[in-house]
């Protein structure tokens, strides 16, 4: 066991750090303020383009696709170094890199790989994810959006409604899963497509969120025509594609993003005056923050164990779900605690205080993290069933044709 960089890793870290120091600052997002969505996405594209031009866009992808062809440990090192900056790396680039590319590489044809991978890596093509529907979230396979083949035109005609589609109002392409056969059980009749968001019949309506922002949407699809050449994988193979995509999502979680480390909250408590010196001198606060810090460290080392497995070609499977489950719950608890440390200033702040609004945003955003990308309860089911071997849920829908449900 060795938690230190190998000489090769250390050398790569030095190179990456120097490159980031010279390139990252001009793309950083301001602290404590939300810039316009369109501006954020513009910065996100530009940062990705800069990285890819220097072979940092994807550390893992082979060079032929525009990646670096590096190791998983190099990817980790780069993510750690990149994480020191507040960079625009939201879903508008994350869905393309972490979901669309892996799915197209695994299930797509070579002309599709050619057409989509390079432009996505260069930030020329941004993506949204058209999966969830009003009646299909955790139970994704219950989705109702229909795709019917028009053989004469060699096109699919899609009708339905998607929801919670992050950044669909500003992205170029969508990954879409739709039902192509209602006469077979729900998981079997699905097919995976990529769709140009400018196609006629797509209407995107922003949804006002509890954060006050509007970065996810309702997406209505009315007689949307998708050429068969934009189908990824075989007809009826949609569920397998979705699983590839969601695995990409899960492995991408944690380690990414500009979230606050617990050390910042500890520092903040140490600088908040109280009758007994500072808030950090209160034993309840101390205990809670030390516990959160210990857990954050443990989670980091757990991820390191997962990466060791992956780099040996082993599949950690559902054990990886721990990371998001633990992270999002801690995030909610500690941002709530941080508000308490502010005492009443935590619920109403002065104009020059830019920190409290960040805490508010964290406290609100944490609720989304506990739901999106596998809700807590779904992750616990996965761990219990796939890691601990406990029985699956009682199901009434498994071997029944979708149109008989």
């Amino acid at each position, binding site marked *: 066991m060795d938690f230190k960089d190998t000489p090769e890793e250390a050398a790569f870290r030095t190179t990456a750090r120097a490159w980031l120091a010279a390139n990252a600052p001009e793309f950083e997002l301001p602290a404590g303020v939300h810039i316009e969505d369109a501006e954020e996405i513009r910065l996100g594209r530009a940062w990705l383009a800069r990285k890819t031009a220097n072979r940092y866009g994807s550390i893992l992808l082979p060079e032929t696709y525009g990646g670096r062809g590096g190791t998983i440990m190099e990817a980790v090192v780069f993510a750690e170094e990149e994480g020191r900056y507040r960079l625009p790396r939201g879903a508008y680039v994350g869905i393309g890199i972490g979901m669309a590319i892996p799915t197209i590489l695994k299930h797509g044809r070579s002309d599709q790989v050619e057409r989509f991978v390079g432009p996505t890596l260069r930030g020329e093509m941004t993506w949204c994810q058209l999966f969830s529907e009003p009646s299909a979230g955790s139970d994704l396979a219950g989705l109702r959006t229909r795709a019917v083949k028009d053989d004469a035109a060699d096109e699919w005609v899609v009708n339905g409604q998607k929801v919670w589609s992050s950044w669909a109002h500003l992205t170029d392409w969508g990954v879409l899963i739709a039902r192509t056969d209602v006469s077979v059980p729900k998981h079997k009749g699905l097919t995976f497509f990529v769709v140009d968001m400018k196609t006629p019949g797509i209407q995107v309506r922003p949804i006002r969120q509890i954060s006050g922002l509007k970065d996810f949407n309702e997406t209505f699809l009315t007689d949307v025509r998708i050429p068969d050449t934009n189908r990824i994988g075989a007809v009826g193979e949609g569920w397998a594609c979705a699983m590839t995509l969601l695995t990409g999502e899960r492995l991408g979680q944690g380690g990414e993003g500009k979230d606050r480390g617990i050390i910042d909250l500890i520092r903040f408590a140490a600088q908040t005056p109280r009758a007994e010196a500072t808030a950090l001198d209160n034993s309840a606060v101390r205990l809670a923050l*030390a516990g959160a810090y210990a857990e954050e460290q443990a*989670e980091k080392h757990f991820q390191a*164990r997962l990466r060791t497995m992956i780099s040996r070609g082993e599949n950690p499977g559902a054990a990886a779900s*721990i990371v998001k489950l633990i992270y999002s719950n801690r995030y909610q608890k500690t941002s709530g605690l941080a508000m308490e440390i502010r005492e009443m200033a935590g619920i109403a702040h002065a104009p020059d205080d830019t920190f409290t609004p960040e805490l508010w945003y964290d406290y609100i955003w944490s609720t989304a993290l506990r739901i999106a990308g596998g809700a807590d309860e779904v992750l616990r089911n996965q761990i219990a069933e796939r890691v601990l071997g406990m*029985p699956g849920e009682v199901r009434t829908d498994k071997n029944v044709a979708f149109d008989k449900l």
Partner: protein
Amino acid sequence: MNFDLSDEQKMLGEQARGLLSARSTFDRLRALIDAGFEWDEPLWRELAEMGFLGAAIPEVHGGLGMSELDLAVISQELGRANAALPFFSSIVLAADAIRLAGSDAQQSEWLPKLARGEIVACFAYAEGSAGWTGGAVKARLANARLIGTKTPVADGGVADIAVVLTEVGGEPGLALVRLDQPGVTRVKLASFDQLRAHYSLIFDGAAAEVLDAQPAREVLDQLFDRAAVQAAFEGVGGAEACLYMARDYAMERQIFGRSLAGYQAIKHKLADVYAGVELARSAAFYGAWAAADGGNELPAAAAAARLQAIDAFERAARENIQVHGGIGYTFEANCHFYYRRERTLALSLGGRERWADRLIAHLPDLRSEAPDHAKAA
């Protein structure tokens, strides 16, 4: 970076597990309690023969000279088996204290005997609820004579010698005392863990020698940090045993016409226990690596490992009884061993408060370098 045990370490763990699961069965533990035994002496001899006691003791002193991580693998298996052995007292604490603070002569006199299991040592630090830091230590050593009361002392009944935290000339010191001498009285205490007997050791002018190669001030923190890592592994082993005991029971138990393990309340509970165990194991790995590496990350790493292990084992031990229902409350079921051991481990070496303090004290520059947001606020 490589964040896994080596193949040799995994094999060592399997060996220890094999031996312990064959010898230290739950029926054996029950028999020891019923007979009023304080340890499983024959098993101790076997551990010694297999080299487990001397695993981390230097080769020149009769050990195998292996690393903290190898020792940790053994600690984890002792925790899993909930063994009735003075390993933590004699090997993890006392032998390490002698190695860290003792002179060459002291090391070569005592370490080989400890490695071979010929003698057992205990480590006497606490003096009741007052703890053992600051001015709390009242035991005094003067003119090679020790006066004071240490309590509670784990394994104080079976030990031949004690390493005692005492004041020496106004400074903290570590003294080595033979327990079979007139100036020593041992009073057995009622212990929460029926398989780890604690004693009061009363010293009334007992002959003692100072471990004086290093000032105790300099080695104590390190000693406790290193022990905290081993305790974390013991806790992870115990927690994992609880997890699978609960899982297996739930799989067999039929309730309302189906397996108890199929109910979400139980699945989710055990998923959380599992997450706790894996996080604690990860923190413990890092702690052991930091101990072996000798860098300055040990204090924070040990404290984090300790806090995570307490959380994990506590939850696992409690929920294990819960999943078992009424049978979990019986002496015949095996949950209670862990439920008692968990508290013993959690409170030895100081509990959450002490380690939270230690963790926070070792984080980088908390009060300097104000973060931007705090300046504004």
